């Protein structure tokens, strides 16, 4: 027998993602899905961002890694709720994992939930977690051809953070290549040149976050 089905394989994930978004909306929280390669500085960015937003805009972090609780330990030193998800080999977070993490957070006084995805430039791009905005990060030591090589990560991004900008001049890095490649992939997202180490770009980034939250979580 042959059965015609026509059913989305992502339907289960997408339904949970919608439920997550509804939950976050109800609490007035802006959720961000932060994606990049391993080592671009996602955790460092959040370590700098959370204090910079101030106590009035409290944040929680859901952090995904294949193994270890090291990122959660780093972020746990800040005044923020942190939940670590170990995917045990899984190369991206799923909406169900985020739902479980949200259930363990006290959403009452939060302004932001940062979901630090697994460091990977391919799979995280394809799964809605229930976020309101996507942030794609890249950093100078990775080379200036990242956008061209991984367009599907940068295409749906609402903001692009180019980190470790203080290393330009030390390394051969041509930012114009990044902008050229982005001109074919995504011309609507702002590109924030950042150095978490020196603080360059941090206020531009937190301004973007505040404006985005002000524009309504949905």
């Amino acid at each position: 027998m042959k059965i015609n089905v026509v059913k989305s394989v992502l339907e289960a994930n997408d339904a949970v993602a919608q439920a997550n978004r509804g939950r976050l909306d109800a609490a007035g929280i802006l959720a961000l899905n932060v994606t990049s390669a391993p080592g671009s500085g996602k955790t460092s960015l959040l370590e700098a961002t959370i204090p910079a937003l101030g106590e009035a805009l409290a944040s929680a972090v859901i952090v995904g890694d294949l193994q270890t609780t090291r990122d959660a330990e780093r972020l746990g030193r800040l005044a923020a709720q942190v939940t670590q998800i170990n995917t045990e080999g899984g190369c991206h977070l799923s909406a169900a994992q985020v739902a479980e993490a949200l259930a363990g957070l006290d959403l009452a006084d939060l302004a932001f939930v940062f979901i630090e995805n697994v460091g990977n430039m391919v799979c995280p791009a394809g799964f809605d977690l229930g976020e309101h905005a996507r942030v794609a990060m890249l950093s100078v030591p990775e080379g200036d051809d990242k956008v061209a090589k991984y367009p599907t990560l940068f295409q749906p991004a609402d903001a692009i953070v180019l980190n470790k900008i203080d290393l330009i001049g030390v390394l051969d890095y041509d930012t114009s290549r990044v902008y050229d490649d982005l001109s074919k992939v995504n011309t609507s997202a702002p590109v924030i040149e950042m150095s978490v180490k020196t603080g360059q770009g941090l206020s531009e980034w937190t301004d973007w976050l505040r404006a985005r939250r002000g524009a309504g979580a949905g």
Partner: protein
Amino acid sequence: MSIAVELVRQLEAVAAENGMVRVEAFGVTAGALRGIVPEALDLAFEAASVGTRAEGARIDLEIVQPRAHCRRCGMEFAIAIDSFLCPGCNHADAEMIVGNEIILTTVTGQGPEGDDGEDQRGQERAGGQ
């Protein structure tokens, strides 16, 4: 891998609903932006389907070329994986219409009566049981 696991879950559900004892083949349509590598999907599916009604089933994978809608000028256009530029206004502010989806389209398998699954004639050959 998570795609293969979800496929197995849906195949089991379809098989159970239709009284299918074994899934022989199934059709999957995937958008090119998903970057599905057929060999990788085969391998993941093989691992995920062990011990289920879908074990050993053949995947008929069809890749769909992506199309997008320009948020600036409203034009609908075909995109290449390395360029999302709108030919109308030259901006890359594209909303995907197709290209990101993964759809289970058909499931072919053996019914409880020894139906060999391919078509009506198959049922006749197996008839009388």
